[in-house]
Structure formats: structure tokens, C-alpha cells
């Protein structure tokens, strides 16, 4: 049996599945239920400074986009940080941590960008026995208008400064949560690293308008005829998050910086992918908000069975295992040649591969043979783009076959070279150093 025990920035948990700072972790009732369901840890929903709590809009707070069968694939929210009194949250954090000593309880924080504000809140959080803090530098709406959240996360100097304040004023590990609403994730991440962060977590939500109500001409979610950009999350953002995680994981300046992967993780496989790209653990929110806490059972058993199958005993055996294979385009092997191949036994003849290729790509799939409806790749036209694979409704019906060295590429008429050759040395590259 694979061991899913997780140690992240010094914080221990029985598994790497943590709930992200969000409504599911807003109070003891939810967190207790989450721990009962089996979650390894929680990021308690962001606390602000003492005083009158923030107020939220009274609905709607979420917008969504859907895939087929109304499957939720993207969710956006305009909720702010916790709207409950600070003392109540602190009491509950203390009690929950006492009840669940083996689970990770990390507290998300967001206070104004003044050292005193941080100096005030850090000791009271520390007193709860929480395992660590997560600095919410990502919230893209509302709080950012008040100079917090993403307003800090978009300025690397502020990130470094606040991180430094926190490190100087608490014993707790400091995890810096990053906003994706920037041009290059490496700059804010490096700032956190410079400031002494114990880890970074990403991505926070993406600025978004989910849809426009065409009856009243207002963005969704609409509050009394108006809307604002909210934070976008859910399965649709996973590719963006994976890339940002990989960019940090392979950055030479941040080697060894633990990453908590967040963004559209919906099942064990998504989690494994984040871990393979260098995440020490993962945080989940939208999947739980869609299906409830029970999904963690599938995540635990799925990851565990996959690790057993692959022979990985602990998470460390594959954390970051895919990072060395993330590279720049210029280093991709231009001598690697693939051709699509349609499995005629599996093909149901929907013809989507043909029309996609014919209308929008390389005219490399025939639609008939001997006067009959038939879809087959024309190797002499196929550039191996993979579009047909992606539009095919049947799993594994079309596969990309790699030509072996010495085989003839029917498109170019040339023999496939067995040698690696990339753009840096290509004859068409004016800057070729080859």
C-alpha cells in the first residue's frame, strides 16, 4: 500500500489533499465535516484584522460555465474574506486543531500592508496552535480595491516586504499564495522566495466575467443589474495553473521552494499531475463545492492505487518527476515525427476528425474510400498536429504513431533521422548557433 503521508513546508498531514482557503473552510462546522470525510488539511478561510468584519453581497456570489450535461467546468466568485468576527474564527481554529491534531490547519491571512497590522494578527493566530499561515496575495476582487489581496500580489516588492515581516514575527511556516493575474508568475514567486517564504501556493483565482445576461445586458453574476469581475476557478483553469506551477518548479532561482498546487484539481489524476510538476501537496476547492467532501475518498484511493501500480511508495518518489521534461519550445526535437492513426475497429464514423482537419488544418483525413464513408489519415499530408485526437469522441480511437528512425515521412519524402535536433541549430534559424 502506498504511503500518502505528506510533509509540506514542515507541516504534516495524512494525505496531500488539503482544502483551499474558501467557503468550505470558513468555520468549524465545515472543517469538522471535511476532516471526518478524510481531508488531510485545510487552509482556513482568510482572516482579516480585528474590528467590524467585512460584508459580502447578499447574492448571487457565484457564476459558472458548463460543459455537456451541465457539468460545471468553471466557477467564478465575488465573495470576500471571512465575514465572521476574528475572535470566533480563532476560537474555532483552536478547537478544531485540538480535535484533529494529525491534520494540517493552516490559517489564511489578509491584513493591510502595514507591518503593525501583521504584528498584531500573527501572535493571536499562533496562539491557536495552527500549523502555519498562508498569505492571501491573490484575491482578485473587492479586497484588492482596498490595497490588499491581488493588489499586493501584483507588486513583487510588496510580496517580499510582507513575507519578510511575517517571517520576522512568527515561528509558523509562511506560505505565500500567488495571484495568476500577472504576466510572469516567476517574478512574484521569486519575491516570496527572497522574502523568506517557506513555500508558495498557486494559483489563486483568475479575473473573470463568466457570462453576460442578454436580457438585462449585465455581467454574471449580476447584483441588482450590475456585476464585477470575480475569481475564476474549477477544471477550466487547470492548464493555466499547471503551467505556472511548472514555471516556478523549473526556475533555477527557486530550487527547493515547496509549492502547494492549486487550480481545477477535480480528481486523483489531476492531483498526481500537479505533484509530478513539483507540487508538494495540492489544494482543492471547486470540486468539493460541486460534489461535497466525499470526493476525497476517490482521490485517496485513486492516487494510492496508481502509486502501487507504478511502484511509488511515498509521494517523494514522484514529486517533481515531470519537471525535467518541461522545457522551452526551442529545445523540442524537430526530428520527432508522428502521424495520426485511426483505429478502424473503434471508429464510429462521426467524421469530426475529417472536418476539423479539412476545414481548419491540413486536409490530411479522407472521408471516403471506394465510395463508402470511411475516415483514414493521409500520411502524405499529416503533420502530426493531434487535433483529430482531441476532437474524436471515442477514447483511444486515434493515436499518434511515432515514426522510427529510417522510416520515410511520406509528407516530406525524407527519411526520419534518429538524431535529436532542435530550433537552436536549425538551418532556418537566423540565430542558429549550429
Amino acid at each position, binding site marked *: 500500500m502506498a504511503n500518502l503521508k505528506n510533509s509540506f513546508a514542515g507541516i504534516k498531514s495524512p494525505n496531500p489533499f488539503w482544502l483551499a482557503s474558501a467557503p468550505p473552510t470558513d468555520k468549524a462546522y465545515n472543517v469538522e465535516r471535511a476532516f471526518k470525510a478524510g481531508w488531510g488539511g485545510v487552509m482556513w478561510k482568510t482572516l482579516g484584522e480585528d474590528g467590524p468584519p467585512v460584508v459580502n453581497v447578499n447574492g448571487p456570489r457565484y457564476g459558472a460555465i458548463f460543459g455537456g450535461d451541465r457539468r460545471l467546468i468553471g466557477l467564478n466568485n465575488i465573495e470576500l474574506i471571512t465575514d465572521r468576527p476574528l475572535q470566533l474564527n480563532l476560537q474555532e481554529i483552536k478547537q478544531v486543531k485540538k480535535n484533529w491534531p494529525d491534520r494540517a490547519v493552516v490559517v489564511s491571512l489578509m491584513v493591510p500592508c502595514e507591518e503593525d497590522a501583521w504584528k498584531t494578527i500573527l501572535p493571536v493566530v499562533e496562539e491557536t496552535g495552527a500549523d502555519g499561515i498562508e498569505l492571501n496575495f491573490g484575491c482578485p476582487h473587492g479586497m484588492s480595491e482596498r490595497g490588499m489581496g491581488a493588489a499586493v500580489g501584483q507588486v513583487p516588492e510588496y510580496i517580499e516586504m510582507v513575507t519578510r515581516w511575517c517571517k520576522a514575527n512568527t515561528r509558523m511556516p509562511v506560505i505565500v499564495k500567488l495571484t495568476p493575474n500577472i504576466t510572469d508568475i516567476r517574478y512574484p514567486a521569486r519575491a516570496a522566495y527572497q522574502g523568506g517564504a517557506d513555500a508558495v501556493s498557486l494559483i489563486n483565482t483568475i479575473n473573470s466575467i463568466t457570462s453576460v445576461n442578454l436580457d438585462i445586458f449585465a455581467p454574471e453574476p449580476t447584483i441588482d443589474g450590475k456585476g464585477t469581475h470575480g475569481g475564476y476557478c474549477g477544471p477550466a483553469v487547470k492548464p493555466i495553473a499547471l503551467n505556472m506551477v511548472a514555471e516556478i518548479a523549473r526556475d533555477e532561482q527557486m530550487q527547493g521552494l515547496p509549492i502547494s498546487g492549486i487550480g481545477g484539481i477535480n480528481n486523483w489524476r489531476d492531483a498526481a499531475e500537479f505533484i509530478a510538476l513539483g507540487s508538494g501537496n495540492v489544494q482543492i476547492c471547486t470540486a468539493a463545492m460541486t460534489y461535497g467532501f466525499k470526493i476525497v475518498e476517490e482521490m485517496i484511493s485513486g492516487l494510492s492505487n496508481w502509486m502501487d501500480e507504478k511502484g511509488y511508495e511515498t509521494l517523494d518518489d514522484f514529486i517533481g518527476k515531470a519537471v525535467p521534461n518541461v522545457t522551452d519550445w526551442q529545445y523540442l526535437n524537430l526530428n520527432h515525427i508522428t502521424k495520426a492513426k485511426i483505429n478502424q475497429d473503434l471508429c464510429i*464514423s*462521426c467524421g469530426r476528425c475529417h*472536418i476539423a482537419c479539412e476545414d481548419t488544418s491540413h486536409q490530411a483525413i479522407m*472521408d471516403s474510400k471506394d465510395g463508402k*464513408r470511411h475516415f483514414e489519415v493521409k500520411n502524405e499530408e499529416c503533420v502530426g498536429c493531434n487535433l483529430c485526437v482531441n476532437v474524436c*469522441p471515442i477514447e483511444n480511437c486515434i493515436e499518434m504513431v511515432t515514426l522510427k528512425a529510417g522510416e520515410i515521412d511520406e509528407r516530406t519524402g525524407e527519411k526520419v533521422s534518429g538524431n535529436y535536433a532542435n530550433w537552436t541549430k536549425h538551418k532556418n534559424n537566423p540565430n542558429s548557433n549550429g
Partner: protein
Amino acid sequence: MGEGQLKKGIISERLNLDEYKENFCDLHSPLGQHEALVEAGRCYFCYDAPCQTACPAEIDVALFIREISNSNPLGAAKTIFDQNIFGGMCARVCPVEILCEEACVRQEAESKPVKIGQLQRFATDLAIDKNKQFYQAGDPSGKKIAVIGAGPAGIACAHRLSMYGHEVEIFDAKEKAGGLNEFGIAAYKSANDFAQKEINYILKIGNIKINTNKKLGSDFSLDDLSNKYDAVFLGLGLAGVNALGLKNEDAKGVQDAIDFIAELRQTKDKSKIAIGQNIVVIGGGMSAIDMAIQAKLLGAQNVTLCYRRGIEQMGASIYEQELATSKGVVIKHWLSPKKILTKKGQVTGIKLEYTSLKNGKLMGTKEKTTLEADQIFKAIGQNLISKNIKSLNLKNGRILVDDEFRTSNEKIFAGGDCIFDGEDLTVTASANGRDAAIAINKQLSKGAK
């Protein structure tokens, strides 16, 4: 089983009123909004979609389903009506299991085709209920066209001709328009007087006049019409009924299924229809199935459908056969009627001989069986009554047309069941009418130059 079913003789009111109501309501309840969206979401929007190729009217199925998916059901209805103005009835009566849905790639992928017929009904019902009119009569051409037969072929032809600006006059022998849609389809497939509702919707285009109770041969002749009008379209259907050729075929209790089905359709209160206790239906097509099922629904105790060939050769699809058996009809294959048994002029049973195929030829095996019956319904096909169209070339007893539905008289066109190679399907009739109208318009426009 209700005790009414055990009563002897040919009697009405075998069931209670609620049972009649339930038995003759819609065969499939229409899809709701949610069901339609889920079902539409299953469509792959295939390239050169096989469902469209399989549709005799070549409806752009993938497009109309995508329109339903994207909250545009009226756009979907127009996509359907553009090809088949009888899209509403066809959604109810088409044997989709051997047409579009059989061709659906989901059938290949997981043996569960997209419910194309049901989705078509969803869109077309909405348009008809809202009386959303997509077409208007074209600018007057000054041409007048006569259509004989107010069935799907005739009305589809008239509708398209009206779109072109021609004036159309339809003549029908019956007291009501609709043809088989009104008189020949099982009641549970056209519940709530849908056939008339649909015709009223279609005729709103205007420029079409229907003359009922006007019979070719007695009220007018083909020559009268071809002299008076710029073109004539024949959507005659098959008004003749095939006979068994047995003794006692005129006995009390022996009846043509097609007449019984028509009577049933025209009778609002189904409890008033008398039906026997033991019923034998002879035939293997849709009328035989419709007859057998409805006999059962009227409360007959035993309904046996006898067909002289096997399952595969039956005109009715496997789906229809299973529908019949699920209602309690017993289907017996390889049985050929030999003798109608009577007592005092009333049918008491039928003697049949088992058959088999020998070298591709159907032969009697000499083994016989007898079935008790107080009613025998013949559903062994219809034929074209040709005595009033003698001037036209026929083939195998039906009207021969060219690929533009032109008969041997170039002013006269024909379509639907009455033509050679006709498919006996509402959808084919509708498509024929449409295409004949296109050809007529082409021909008349040429003449105008």
C-alpha cells in the same frame, strides 16, 4: 385482466373509460426542456451526418439538434420544416429505428442513438403550439396547380408551390384533409387531433384551397384538371385494398384493417368501438401492427398477428414488433391463411398453413393450424386504383415517374405511396411532394420565359 376482455362476441365498452384514455394517449410522452437539453447534448454534430443521409427528407439533423442545444428551438423547427413541412407528424410516426436513429453514430458507439425523433418533436411542437410561421406565399406567379389527394405528399407539394407564388387547389375524396395522417395512423401516435392541428398550421401559408369530398373519376377527371390548370400533382395514395382471395371473405367479422384504423381514428370516444374477444390480424406491415396493437388496447382478449414469412421480412420494424408483443399481441410467423371458418355467416376462426422458404420460394408445408377468431382483420397491403389515370404509364401497378416526379404526361406529376418504388412512409411522401413542387416550379418558370 379486466373481466370485460373475457366477454364473448364483438362488443364495445370492454374496458372502463380511464383505461381507454390511458391506452390511447400519446405513445411517447414529449421530452421536457431538461430532457431535450440532455439528449441534444449527446449529439456529436457529425460531419456529413449519417442521420441526415438516412432521412428520406434529408433533414439537417445535426444542425437542428445543435440549435436545440443552444436555446434556439424555433431555429431548430425551421431547419426541420425547410426540408419536411410534416416534421411534426414524422417525429411521431417515422420508423426512426430503421432511419436516422439507426444511422446515428451513437448507435454504433454505445447502442443508444440520440433520440432524434423525440428532439424533432420537441422543436416542431413548440413552433406549432406558438403558431410560429416561417414561410409566406411567394409573389403571385399567375399559375394555378391542382393537387389530387390531401395527404402528406399533396399538402407538402402545395405548401412548397405556395412558397413559389403559385395558387394551389387540392381535391380529396374524403370528408377531411390529411390522408393517412388523418385516417391511417394508430391513434396513440397522433393523439389530441394532431394531424388536423398540423395541417391547419401548414395551410396558414395561404394560397391553398382544399376541396373535400371531391373524388377523381366521379367529380372530375384527370383531363379536366390538366386542361384547366398549369400543372397537376397526384398524391393519390393507395386507395385499393388487397384481398386474401379466400372463400367467406365477405363473412361477418372479416374486415380490412385500414378501414377499422380509420374508423378508430375518427371516433372520439374509443369505448364506442366494438371489438371481438379473439382477433386474428393477417399481414406483416405497419398497418397490421397498428391494427393488432389497437385491438389489444380496445380490450380484445387474444390478438394474434399472422404473417406468412419471418421476422426479418416483416415490413414492420423489430421495434414495432416488440411494441406489439409488449402490449400483449402474439406474433406468429410463417403462417399463411387457408380457410375462413364461419357459422351462420359469422367468422368463428381461421385455418392457416405453415410455410417455409425453399430455394428462395415461399412454400406451404402442408402442416396446418386453426385459430379461434370472431374478427379477422386483413392488412396485406393496398394497391393503386388506376382506372381513373389510365393515360399514365404505370409500373408494377403504380405510377411511373422520372427523377423529377414527372409522369408520362409532362404536365402531371406524382409522389407518395402511389408512385413506383414509393416507400410507404409519411416522410418519403412529404419529401416527394416537396421535390415535385420544385420540379413543377422549374418547369413553369421555364415556360414563362
